[in-house]
């Protein structure tokens, strides 16, 4: 019995001494695991032209205005493209932290578009670490530009785009994204080659400061819609100020809907056929 008692006394004293030694250290030993979801892989819901894995949080509405000006090789006479502008106005809403949808209207070919995004997997750290985020993206675009020569049905004017967006935030400054893409058209013109175009996009961002980041985005097409189709390239800056995100970019794409910029781009970026453009996003917490 004696040795047991001695051990007991020793344990009691040593435990209580330890507890008092550093109360904060003892307290932190009790702390639950750090919340692990990786937030803000990208600043906005768009990488540049295309979507990022990001969605807004539940109950947030995002009003988005995007412009693409004419090509800068028009020179001073065209004020480097600023004389022409194509615009898209969009309204987006987050139903849950994972489900996000949006509607938009582009002046380019008078296109209406709608999209749904769902966050399948979210990158996280800690006990149940997940290395990447994955978001499903589906978009429908309806071209309403009148064509008196053709009698087209509603479904003839539709094109759909599906993407699996995969991204990883490597650290606070660097995030990369891959975008396997499938664009489908119900009807194509005589001079067009493929109803279906598969593409692989890649992009990323590097933060210069807490509020400014450099982004690049490139879509490689495995099939072409036209013989003169080019791969869309874009480089831009994200500037964040409170509830706004400004994205300024240079790109060879004219369209601002996925089926458009991925497959209908005909300008050559490296030949100076570059559009200056911007996206402005303003968020409102609706509920």
């Amino acid at each position: 019995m004696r040795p047991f008692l001695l051990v007991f006394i020793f344990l009691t004293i040593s435990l209580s001494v330890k507890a008092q030694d550093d109360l904060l250290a003892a307290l932190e030993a009790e702390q639950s695991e750090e919340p692990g979801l990786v937030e803000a892989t990208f600043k906005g819901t768009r990488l540049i032209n295309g979507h990022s894995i990001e969605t807004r949080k539940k109950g947030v509405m995002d009003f988005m205005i995007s412009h693409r000006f004419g090509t800068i090789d028009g020179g001073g006479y065209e004020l480097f493209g600023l004389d022409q502008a194509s615009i898209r106005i969009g309204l987006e809403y987050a139903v849950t932290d994972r489900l996000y949808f949006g509607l938009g209207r582009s002046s380019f070919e008078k296109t209406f578009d709608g999209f749904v995004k769902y966050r399948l997997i979210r990158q996280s750290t800690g006990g149940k670490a997940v290395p990447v985020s994955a978001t499903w993206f589906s978009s429908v675009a309806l071209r309403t530009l009148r064509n008196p020569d053709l009698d087209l049905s509603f479904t003839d004017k539709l094109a759909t785009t599906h993407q699996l967006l995969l991204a990883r935030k490597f650290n606070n400054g660097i995030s990369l994204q891959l975008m396997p893409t499938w664009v489908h058209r119900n009807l194509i013109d005589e001079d067009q080659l493929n109803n279906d175009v598969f593409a692989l996009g890649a992009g990323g961002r590097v933060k210069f400061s807490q509020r400014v980041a450099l982004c690049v985005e490139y879509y490689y097409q495995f099939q072409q819609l036209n013989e003169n189709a080019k791969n869309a390239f874009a480089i831009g800056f994200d500037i964040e100020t409170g509830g706004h995100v400004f994205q300024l970019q240079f790109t060879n794409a004219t369209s601002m809907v996925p089926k458009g910029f991925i497959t209908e781009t005909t300008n050559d970026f490296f030949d100076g056929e570059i559009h200056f453009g911007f996206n402005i996003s303003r968020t409102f917490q609706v509920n």
Partner: protein
Amino acid sequence: MKNGILTFLLVAFAMVSTLAQPLLDRTGTASFYSEAPLEDIEAINEEVLGAIDLEKGTLAVSMFIKKFNFERSLMQEHFNENYLESDKYPKATFKGVIKDFAAINFTEAGSFEAQAEGEMEIHGVVRPLTAVVKFNVSPETLRVSTEFEVSVADHEIEIPKLVIKNIAEVVEVRASFNFKRQER
């Protein structure tokens, strides 16, 4: 007889160790309030860990920055990403002592105030902090609450000029804990 002494000793040690065991609250709250010309911002963390050691008069508080909830989710993202950099500095902590602890009787029911003195770490920067702490003692619980001000610049949290009218340079912080005395 021998058994009697042994039992007495065991009970005595058990009591000593219970007394020495600090009181713990896992669901303490901490909130802050920023009042600026353009907007007022408020956030609350309801999973703050607090401990008080009534043997030594020491206090400790630890919380995850990511557990602060804002009314606007984008603000919460910016708070973590741009201001507090919670990936790099996940916690805010305080450790300190109650001044004139020996003169305070924690067994008598009632309310009183005392000064707490210690070090607070926010955004990886440790600063001394002295605050008035209110105690509310009852046989079952010990309620502890405090209010103090924190200068954002003191903790090297950068506010860009563009949003200087949206974020206060000094924010009001409140914290409260409810320690159950019978629990352990």
